[in-house]
């Protein structure tokens, strides 16, 4: 196996046994970037100098991520490194502070390979909304990698890093993980500190790992999780040793299959792969039953009101006054208008307008408040379901990766791509997407496992044991 294709735990073993030195590993990753990045375009910034500096510091240290090269989505702030959110408006922004997650990774000795591409401000499902360039799916470079964490999932799939961090507001880790054939975990809302994550929709955003296997995801989750005094919404709860729990028995796990997720528009090849996977889980000893999440049909609409409302406010700070891009102008109003007109892309503007409208006097009750009420109903659906089952399994996406340009002119079609992932964010639950097959075009298919709030361990151990009893996760794209 090529060194660049190894996961975190494999690489740690190789380095610990002395078979591979940290330099060799890092060199292999940058050689891989050199040879494939032109085709994949996963990164906004490659931080080679920083990576080797960090290597000097981390060498000989005993952190859990000693000398492991990782990529970080470019909406997570790292001190002294540009953080652009793939937006022209933040093109020159270099944060003077460090996100809590990267601070924790650094304490464990990780090496920063680069900052990965995303849909501008994490708004999109294909990275086509990036203000800089579109990332390609390593499995078929005429297709999208998914989004918004498409840069991170493509980098992991292509071997340009051992693993990565992404962020997930409505599916932005899981959907691209499914499209790129990697593992993507969205933790419970509040499990991981958001400090340093540039906000899209504060009540939905959550940072999570994107990895080559479930055990690596468990390892990274353990590191980045836990209460952070700088984030009031982070939960003051004990974080378990997820790695140690992976091999616990799953025979008494009850799996629920929501009937509302097997609908028209679900690609038959995806459906059949997911159904095979469910049968496979049955053979591993899980009991399976059909459940109902009756308000599923309202999730997309609810999400697009709440997420855009919060976004319209979160993005107000990009006004040209303090940092980032400022347009030439003759007065204040023109400065605001031109800075934002030139600095933001079309999708971001669309969402700011949607959200501004939903919060406006006279519309608030009908849109924002109503959406909050529906959000409660959606959450209650899950509460009810979790009285009967321990985890819920669904397809991650209705289709496999689509072609670049195929949906970009039809926002609604694009939004429907998140139909299976969005409810999870509204309910604040943890969910993981793992590879569960390939379609006839050779494109990866993702299986989504949803858990109870703060019960990441159940979905991790089922995912791990499923993964280890299949071969899907071992396939690498033919780059």
């Amino acid at each position, binding site marked *: 196996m090529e060194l660049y294709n190894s996961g975190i735990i494999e690489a740690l073993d190789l380095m610990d046994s002395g078979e591979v030195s940290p330099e060799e590993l890092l060199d292999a990753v940058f050689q891989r970037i050199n040879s494939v990045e032109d085709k994949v375009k996963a990164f906004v910034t490659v931080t080679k100098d920083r990576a080797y500096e960090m290597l000097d510091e981390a060498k000989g240290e005993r952190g859990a991520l000693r000398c492991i090269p990782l990529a970080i989505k470019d909406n997570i702030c790292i001190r002294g490194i540009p953080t652009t959110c793939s937006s022209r408006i933040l093109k020159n922004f270099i944060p003077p502070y460090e996100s809590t997650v990267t601070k924790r990774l650094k304490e464990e000795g990780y090496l920063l390979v680069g900052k990965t591409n995303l849909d501008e401000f994490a708004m999109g499902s294909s990275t086509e909304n990036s203000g800089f360039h579109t990332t390609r799916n390593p499995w078929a470079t005429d297709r999208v990698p998914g989004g918004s964490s498409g840069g991170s999932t493509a980098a992991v799939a292509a071997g340009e890093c051992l693993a990565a961090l992404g962020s997930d507001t409505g599916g932005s880790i899981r959907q691209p993980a499914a499209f790129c054939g990697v593992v993507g975990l969205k933790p419970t809302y509040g499990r991981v500190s958001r*400090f340093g994550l540039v906000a899209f929709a504060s009540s939905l955003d959550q940072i999570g790992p994107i990895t080559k296997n479930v055990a690596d995801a468990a390892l990274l989750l353990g590191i980045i999780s836990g209460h952070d005094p700088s984030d009031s919404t982070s939960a003051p709860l004990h974080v378990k040793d997820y790695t140690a729990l992976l091999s616990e028995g799953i025979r008494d796990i009850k799996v629920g299959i929501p009937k509302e997720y097997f609908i028209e528009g679900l690609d038959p090849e995806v459906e059949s792969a997911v159904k095979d996977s469910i049968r496979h889980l049955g053979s591993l000893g899980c009991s399976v039953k059909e459940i109902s999440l009756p308000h599923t049909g309202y999730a997309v609409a609810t999400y697009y009101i709440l997420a855009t409302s919060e976004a319209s406010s979160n993005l107000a700070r990009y006004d040209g006054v303090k940092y980032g891009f400022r347009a030439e102008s003759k007065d204040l109003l023109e400065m605001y208008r031109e800075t934002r007109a030139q600095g933001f892309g079309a999708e971001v503007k669309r969402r700011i307008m949607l959200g501004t409208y939903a919060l406006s006097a006279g519309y608030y009750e009908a849109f924002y408040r109503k959406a909050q009420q529906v959000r409660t109903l959606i959450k209650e659906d899950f509460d009810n379901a979790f009285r009967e089952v321990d985890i819920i399994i669904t397809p991650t996406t209705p289709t496999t990766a689509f072609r670049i340009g195929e949906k970009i002119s039809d926002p609604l079609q694009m939004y429907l791509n998140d139909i299976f992932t969005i409810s999870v964010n509204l309910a604040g639950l943890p969910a993981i997407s793992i590879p569960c097959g390939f379609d006839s075009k050779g494109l990866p298919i993702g299986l989504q496992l949803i858990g109870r709030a703060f019960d990441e361990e159940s979905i991790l151990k089922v995912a791990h044991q499923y993964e280890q009893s299949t071969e899907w996760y071992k396939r690498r794209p033919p780059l």
Partner: protein
Amino acid sequence: MNYEAVIGLEIHAQLLTETKIFCGCSTRFGSEPNTQTCPVCIGMPGVLPVLNRRVVEFAIKTGLAMNCRISSYSRFARKNYFYPDLPKGYQISQYELPICEKGYIDITVDGTTRRVGITRIHMEEDAGKNIHEKDCSLVDLNRAGVPLLEIVTEPDIRSPQEASAFMKKLRAILRYLRVCDGNMEQGSLRCDANVSIRPEGSDELGTKTEIKNINSFRFVEKALDYEIKRQIRVIRDGGEIVQETRLWNSETGKTESMRSKEEAHDYRYFPEPDLVPLEIKREMVEEIKAALPELPDEKKARFVRDYKLPEYDAEILTEERSIAEWFEEAVRLGARPKEVSNWMLTEIMRYLNETGKEIEEIDLRPPQLVELLELIKGGTISRNIAKTILPEMISTGRSAEEIVREKGLVQISDTSELEALVDEILSKNQKEAQRYREGETKLLGFFVGQVMKATKGKANPKIVNEILRKKLS
């Protein structure tokens, strides 16, 4: 037709916390621009607010002192608008669920006490400051994130005098609680007023205007007086009041139209998702309640009752907690309450007013005043001498005895010495002595004056009087 005014106030009080409401930056006033800032209070991408516990305590304290109900569950909300001094493009404030609701403050105007309802008190962050130069505008964000309380009254106020009395009482309470320094000129206490008029006896509310920029206590009455008269004039001329925001201009003494209702902002309030709802435990409220200081009204009543002070004295002495405490310390040291009050209300207050200092900033402490009063009582110095040395005591902090000794101001009470002096003066002023004896007794003062002049004020006036009367009869 006679009109009555209906006034409601919206007050912003800057809290005296060490640090800002959502970050650890200092709240100190007057530093170099943008030196008291951090990524949180300048609204950088990805940073998050963390609520300062002291702000919550101050809000609860204030709410309790103003007889409010303290909400066990309250929320922060975002108020969205664009302005360069508002770094996030929204202000974190409270909207639907404020921390305090339904309180009141009693005010007294011309002997009549009225109750003014407090609709709500909520916590929020201050904005920064725009500074306009000749060819550019600059932004100073030192003030951005400084904690504020917004206090909103019911439309219960009926006259500019009541509004002024309300503001004074509110300021006194805030200062008693040590939550706000109450300085309107420096902007740490700000007052906006909603004003409308209606025919006397009517229950309906007229169209209101909002008056902003009332930036001094002096202007509360003036601005409202102007606005009420303006509204009456408009109505009498057959016009209609336009709902609008008006700016008080202290130079012209007028209010001027700033923006109409149509131009008003839509703030698009919604719950702040970066902060969890605030749950306040009963025990916390009880603890704060138990630690509340005695408030102005209670203190005044006690001063009248226990120290037998006139209402007037008690009112003034209790306007400031530090002054009341100064007074009580002096009384505790054995001085007569009315005597202490007299000196405080005259010489000491005059000095404070002239210098703009707080009583705790001057070097004169209660024991020194008491010592001075002892010197008078013991006959060492006269009341007049005391008056002349008090300013020096206040400004230098030196003791009365020291000054008296150094300047040789000890009172001359030696009868034989004074008799000799009186004899001398009478012989020099024989004409006047004659006139006195013929009944022009008001000339006694003239002779006392001569004696005082000769002794540089040190003669014991009581003894001088006795001697003069005896010698002139």
